[in-house]
């Protein structure tokens, strides 16, 4: 039984079709990367899965406990809140079902002193990693990541990649990852969904990340730059 099934989902807003008849399934422990140009509906698709916007079609979650890491721009940051207090908001009722504050901080590469930092004094990159820590705190089995390394520096990115790898192999967590970083997609995704309002392609990274498919998705000429 897949942990998530998306069947013929469409979302329109103000007369515009943002997502058009998209379908896919995700098994436990699998990771799906969603790639596509800006404005193609990737974040909207996540919001439909979260049930925070209206959609037509079916989204079936079976035994899914969700953790969500939004893009940092969607968050109200100007609050008198410490990291520790922020984490306490995510704790599941049964105490032993969660990671401790120190272990999630460690997971994203921070020391214990970060627990007492104020929300508003974190840098953009630090904030992104705290959001990731909070999302995994209650040990979800389906993680939705919207551009997890968008504002993170190179050293921080390594930590995030290590975390993604660990989540995949050891914890058997299902992952949906929106990313523009194709090397991340190549390394960590079992499958890739190309989205440009509708499903343009779907398959293993090896098949999808070719110049022909990318041209089809993004338009224009594309080359690989290895880094």
């Amino acid at each position: 039984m897949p942990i998530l099934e998306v069947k013929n989902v469409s979302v329109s807003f103000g007369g515009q079709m943002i997502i058009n008849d998209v379908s896919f399934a995700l098994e436990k422990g699998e990771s799906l990367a969603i790639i596509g140009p800006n404005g193609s509906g990737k974040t909207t698709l996540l919001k439909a899965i979260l049930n925070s916007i209206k959609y037509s079609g079916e989204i079936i979650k079976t035994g899914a406990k969700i953790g969500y890491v939004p893009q940092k721009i969607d968050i109200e940051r100007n609050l008198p809140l410490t990291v520790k207090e922020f984490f306490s908001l995510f704790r599941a009722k049964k105490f032993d079902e969660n990671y401790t504050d120190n272990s999630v901080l460690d997971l994203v590469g921070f020391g214990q002193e970060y627990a007492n930092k104020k929300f508003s004094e974190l840098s953009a990159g630090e904030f992104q990693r705290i959001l990731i820590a909070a999302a995994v705190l209650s040990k979800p089995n389906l993680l939705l990541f919207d551009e997890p390394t968008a504002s993170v520096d190179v050293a921080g990115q390594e930590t995030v990649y290590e975390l993604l790898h660990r989540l995949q192999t050891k914890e058997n967590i299902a992952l949906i990852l929106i990313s523009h970083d194709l090397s991340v997609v190549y390394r960590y995704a079992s499958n890739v969904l190309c989205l440009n309002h509708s499903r343009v392609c779907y398959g293993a990274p090896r098949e999808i990340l070719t110049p022909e498919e990318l041209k089809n998705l993004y338009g224009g000429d594309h080359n690989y730059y290895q880094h």
Partner: protein
Amino acid sequence: MELILPILISGTAIAIATGYLGSFALLRRMALVGDALSHVALPGIALGLMFHFNVLIGSLAFLILSVIIIWVVEHKTKLNVDTLVGVLFTLALAIGAVLSSGEELLDSLFGDIGKITNVDFWVILISSIVIVLALLILTRKLLLNMISKDIAFSLGMKPHIIELLFLLIFALTVAIGIKFIGALLMGALIIIPAATARNLAHNFKNYAVISVLMGVISVNFGIIIASFYNLDTGPVIVILASTFFFLSIFFQKR
């Protein structure tokens, strides 16, 4: 002087409720909602006076009706909330003013805590307890909803319902606040202590506690000073609270 103790007790109860509610309202950028909502209570008060039922109940009924209307307009229609609120609320104020007169009108604008009845006293006390308990229970949901609605959804919460519950608690707080300090200055009890606490606190727990403390201190000292110098209680409380606010700006840690 014998009447002062019930006034101090009910004042403290209201200060705790408004201080605590205000701490959330300020963060949600709803600082001026208390002010706007207080206008809506006036027709309820006026009708209560005309038809001789308890004005607190009358104003509460109108307040609850208004917040439900606002919530429905905001979440179920595409109408512009600001404009609608602006028109409705000033209309309510005008209707209230037309229906009441003279001293009754002044009482509802500036509060008449000196005339507090036994029933009013217990209604205020119980309402304050209900407000504080409700906010305590909803703290986690309110904060998450504030930070990111999508994160709230991811954790299985329903932001629209949280919003409605908050508005209803707000309505109850405004109802008892108006009885105490009147419709004109009611908003101040919600905004000022929280604004002072915002300057002084560095985590949420301290912020909420300081907001309540600032409210309680302003109210108690305000009542005592006003009674001593034979001044109107409401304005004295607000001047005191504002003084604390301006002082807090100097003591702000950067």
